């Protein structure tokens, strides 16, 4: 015989699975379906390539889809991985200090009335579609870089191997600059959230001890928020690696590994965008592109996971909201 409480609970459980809640459950299944479908499609598509090239795919630097004498393709992911890593590094080098500066400006320095507009303007940067960045890049930034910036760098710092070589504007440097512009709003938003979540007590203690604003930042806020700032950097990295359109339009599309930043190269997304639709029935070539997509998926996934776990750890300790 059930008690009153148990009967109510049973009724509530029965009510829980009414029509609306069934719909909710069904809809929620959609999310893992997307994830599983993506994984399945990528793994299934890249099987041929994984079997053919094995682990060497990641270290081979040759990309020969059609060998001169008609043999099987010799493909390697290293040039595109190299390009991805280099452009992301350039992007981070520019974006991290600027994002940090923006975050500090928005959370500390901006006078009250200016704060919301400044946040709003930076978020507008994030709203611009990637292809518009690419168009602006290829028709404005590339000529600008090749006429003013690149020659300037070559003249002053040309002894460094990274600034040597000829330039026509299309290359890893320009791609890195555009990537930096695209990830700044993202990183700045996360950093700002982190910094504003640092307890007032920390700041006030430093000020009470006679610290300037900068010293408060340096000694009280940033070390406290360091995990979150790293999380922001990692998330921005994941974003940068997956960026396709803007990079494809300005990077020059050549499978090459070179120290010079001005030379055209390629990134994993740019290779896929360029070569996917026209892999003519060549099983291993298509599978190799799928494998590249799988690698990209894995990298973006890991970056995202690390970033979010860092933030969740902070949230768990009550340090920051989780709506990033």
């Amino acid at each position, binding site marked *: 015989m059930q008690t009153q409480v148990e009967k109510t609970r049973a009724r509530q459980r029965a009510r829980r699975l009414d029509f609306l809640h069934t719909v909710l459950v069904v809809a929620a299944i959609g999310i893992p379906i997307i994830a599983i479908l993506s994984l399945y499609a990528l793994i299934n598509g890249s099987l041929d390539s994984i079997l053919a090239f094995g682990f060497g795919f990641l270290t081979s630097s*040759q*990309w*020969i*889809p*059609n*060998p*001169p*004498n*008609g043999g099987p393709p010799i493909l390697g992911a290293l040039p595109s991985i190299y390009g991805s890593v280099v452009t992301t590094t350039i992007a981070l080098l520019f974006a991290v200090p600027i994002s940090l500066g923006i975050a500090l400006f928005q959370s500390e320095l901006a006078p009250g009335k200016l704060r919301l507009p400044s946040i709003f303007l930076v978020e507008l940067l994030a709203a611009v579609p990637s292809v518009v960045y690419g168009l602006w890049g*290829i028709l404005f930034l*590339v*000529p600008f870089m*090749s006429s003013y910036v690149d020659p300037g760098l070559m003249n002053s710092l040309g002894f460094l191997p990274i600034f040597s*070589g*000829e330039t*026509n*504007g*299309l290359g890893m440097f320009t791609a890195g600059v555009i990537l930096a512009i695209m990830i700044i709003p993202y990183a700045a938003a996360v950093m700002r959230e982190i910094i504003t979540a640092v307890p007032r007590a920390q700041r006030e203690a430093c000020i009470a001890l006679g610290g300037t604003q900068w010293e408060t930042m340096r000694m009280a806020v940033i070390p406290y928020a360091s995990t979150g700032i790293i999380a922001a950097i990692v998330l921005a990295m994941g974003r940068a690696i997956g960026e396709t359109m803007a990079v494809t339009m300005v990077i*020059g*599309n*050549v*499978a*090459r590994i070179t120290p010079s930043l001005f*030379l*055209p190269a*390629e990134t994993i997304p740019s290779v896929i965008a*360029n*070569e996917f*639709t*026209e*892999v*003519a*029935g060549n099983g291993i070539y298509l599978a190799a592109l799928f494998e590249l997509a799988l690698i990209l998926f894995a990298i973006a996934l890991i970056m995202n996971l690390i970033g979010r776990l860092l933030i969740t750890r902070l949230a768990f300790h009550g340090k920051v909201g989780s709506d990033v």
Partner: protein
Amino acid sequence: MIRMSNKNSKRNIAIVVLVIVVIAAVAGGYYFMTSSSSTSQTTSMEQISTQMSETSSMTTQQSMMSSETMSSATTMASATSSVAGWQPTASVSITGAGATFPQPLIQKWTVTYNQLYPQVQISYNGIGSGGGIQQITAKVVDFGCSDAPLSNAQFAAAPGLVLFPETLGGVAITYNLAIYGIPSSTVLHFTSSVIAQIYMGTILKWNDPQLVALNPGITMPDAHITVVHRSDGSGTTFAFTNFLSVTDPNWATQVGYSTSVTWPVDTAPNAIGVGGKGNPGVAGAVANTNGAIGYVDLIYALENNLGVGAVENAAGNFIAPTLQTILYAAQNATGTPNPKDLRLHIVNAAGPQSYPIATYTYTLEYQDMSKNPDITLPMAQALAHFFWWEIHDGQQYAPALYYVPLPANVVAADEQLLLTLNYQGTPLLP
């Protein structure tokens, strides 16, 4: 506090109303657009009459062609008349994809054909020859186009696929040296060996002794050559590398020819290689880069005011690509086309005035169109008639876009192939 404040609910209502208005506007606009397509039929009549007057100006250009092409006009007329009375039975929407080489011409054709037969909408997307072959093999598009002839292996992968040439063009060696005082009107001379060396990264500068020797009287600048090639699978690449392989043994062993090769210039020390997607990408890269060289379909070079080079042909003459010289190449090298295998190689053609880098482009279709389950009978009929129109009436649009009208023997062979197109056995033409 469950009740909303007035201001808030007003705002929400405003948002909802705005969304509904936008949806209604879009739906209304869509409805308006699709219903107005029927009124465009009356205007298409005026457009056909303007095309008739255009045809007369086209024939004066055609008269510059050899007599063989002119005599084909009578054959054209008789064949066309047997199919001319056809009218489409239903509204059809057809998708084709493939090479960017003939894209300006094919898109001109599809738009013109739609003006003639408003119920037939054929849309062509330039995704590269490799893409055309891939998508027609997978039966995802309704027809494909490629400038690279299919290999036997590719034919085996797509049983029942046939190809026929629909136009003919030249791959131009194009360069951008305007800033160095060499305007696009100046025709530089190249040999295949020099081109091969440039694309292998062994000739690095415009004032290399070999280039200077080939171009006496022109001050070649002391500038680095930016070498532009295709980044996607391309029939233009196929023709270009085919030419280099046939004429330069070094290239043949080191690189070979294909729709997509590994360019030595990308990894050669001190050389700059750049990849462009599609003919437009290569032309764009050349147009935007001082000191660049590239290979593109002739129209892409001419329409962008890029310099076009003269290449040494088999007879030892330096020939620039023009409609005439490309036609000579076709006439000298086509031979007798066999309708059962219309893959025609005309690279490095004999003849004193032949342009050495000429190529046919091919339309790819299944002989039995029903093999592609998405193609219905009305679609197959429309497509077959479109192909017939392409090789007859369509050819008049070629010269204005720097493509060469098909020689008569090729048209005849094409006709024989088109007559074998069927739908589950029933021939589609006439």
